[in-house]
């Protein structure tokens, strides 16, 4: 009976351990995460290898193809592309984490409240969701930009977070709607469990895989949106990001001049991060959904 007495406390740990067991045996998840982590490590530890200023001009070193001195070559102004790439990776991960995190949090809070409460609160939140959904985000950004002199990474992430949450909210709301009618939610209410705990401990664990995947997709999506904004010149006014590098390469005709080393690293960086996150996402789906497990 001693084993039985400790059983209640262990119930949640077992679920987690089972997920970890399959996670460590899923090549898609491991491969995807490995690529993302390597790029993250380059962003974090890169400055140790190459502590130069990403904007330092050097007319003697202008337009150099990749070499031992300049790993990724140099720009028209002699700026080191690798130094810019490392700094750009940092910014890109920052935007991904902040923008993606904000998107996921706003979407989940609104989705859970609307789905669980229902009624008038749901009607109002749903209307708000639909309004934000149909806002032309780019036009709004142009207007916002006209009023804000300084554009920072934080502002960009805030903007992405405030405009991309509706899809998350809609999906979470729909799922919560279906789960809240299940009797175990009523039973939790009959156990005097407060609403916040019912949502977090009874409903959310049933969709934990979905919520986790939502964050990953928001992370990737946020990087893509930020890169597009940077590319059309609506990015941060200070600093460097992968999208800004692409914009500079485009502006200074890198493609026509055959300076492939200027635009391929940032392009490949964005593609690798987002692609790897999506592959990891497919892997996660297999980890959490027993029907998709191949083992």
């Amino acid at each position, binding site marked *: 009976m001693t084993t039985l007495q400790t059983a209640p406390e262990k119930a949640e740990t077992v679920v987690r351990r089972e997920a970890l067991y399959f996670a460590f045996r899923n090549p898609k998840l491991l491969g995807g995460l490995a690529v993302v982590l390597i790029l993250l490590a380059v962003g974090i530890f890169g400055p140790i290898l190459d502590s130069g200023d990403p904007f330092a001009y050097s007319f003697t070193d202008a337009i150099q193809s990749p070499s031992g001195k300049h790993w990724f070559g140099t720009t028209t102004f002699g700026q080191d592309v690798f130094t810019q790439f490392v700094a750009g990776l940092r910014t890109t991960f920052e935007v991904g984490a902040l923008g993606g995190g904000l998107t996921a949090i706003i979407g989940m809070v609104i989705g859970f409240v609307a789905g669980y409460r229902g009624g008038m609160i749901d009607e109002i939140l749903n209307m708000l969701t639909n309004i934000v959904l149909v806002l032309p985000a780019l036009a709004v950004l142009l207007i916002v930009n006209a009023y804000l002199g300084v554009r920072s990474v934080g502002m960009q992430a805030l903007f992405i977070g405030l405009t991309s949450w509706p899809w998350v909210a809609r999906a979470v709301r729909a799922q919560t709607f279906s789960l809240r009618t299940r009797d175990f939610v*009523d039973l939790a209410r009959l156990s005097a469990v407060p609403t916040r705990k019912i949502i977090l401990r009874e409903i959310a664990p049933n969709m934990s895989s979905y919520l986790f995947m939502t964050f990953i997709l928001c992370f990737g999506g946020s990087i893509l949106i930020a890169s597009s904004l940077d590319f059309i010149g609506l990015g941060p006014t200070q600093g460097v990001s992968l999208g800004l590098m692409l914009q500079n390469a485009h502006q200074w005709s890198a493609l026509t001049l055959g300076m492939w080393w200027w635009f391929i690293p940032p392009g490949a960086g964005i593609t690798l991060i987002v692609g790897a996150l999506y592959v990891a996402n497919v892997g996660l789906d297999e980890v959490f959904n027993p029907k998709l497990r191949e083992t």
Partner: protein
Amino acid sequence: MLSLADVSKVYRVGAFGGKTMTAVDGVTFDVDQGQVVSLIGESGSGKSTIGRMILGLTAITKGSITFDGAPVRPGADYYRKVQGVFQDPFSCYNPVFKIDHMFQLIRQIRPYTQEKLEESISSVRLEPGQVLGKYPHQLSGGQLQRLLIARALLLDIRLLVADEITSMLDASTRIDVLNLLVDLKARGLGVLYITHDLSLGNYLAERTVVLRRGVVVEMGPTEKVFEDPLHPYTRQLLAAVPRLHAPWEDARPAGCGVHSDVQPDPDHYVACSCEKEPE
């Protein structure tokens, strides 16, 4: 103990709650200690809504529900005394957790020892070692349903709202669960047994309340309601019970039989059947 007085529930439906739908209309009855009251009605008659209102899961639109003279206030105090068991045992357990999780939840409203937990599981004729630490999908519907009753027992409740608790069980398990309810009654618990199955209501209950479209049509001691049904709807219900080797009786409501001012017996209420049929 439990008393419903002129209880109604009106749902707001449609966009922004523009329309209304009356699910329960002016229902009045009592459940006393050690008494099983069966609430009988067809699907959509509002019987589950009444159960949910008693449990504080659905708000009342009009009227009052009191327990020991005090209005129902959902919370730890009330749920120590009144609990519910629902129709679908598989839906009552969170599928991602082991069944112990459900017992864990009630710890905050009434702390219990491991011995008490095992005792209440044994009292619903289950072996604690065989059910604790299992996932809901690893147990049968009957086992899950009995564990829900064990949960209620662990709380030392005084009233159980049993909402169609046997309709998803096979015949032999069903009789086990029903006998459990008889045990509960012997312990002095009040039971509101919500069902659409007349024979089960007859088996258990002292009093029967027949509900139709949210309105009580007949109410009284079970033997009176079953042996001498006065309302045409009750007669129709009783005639619809399948019997072995007996031809089907077609008992349509025979028009106006009883009027509200003619009550045959103060303990045997019957509604006026002159009501206009809804379109």
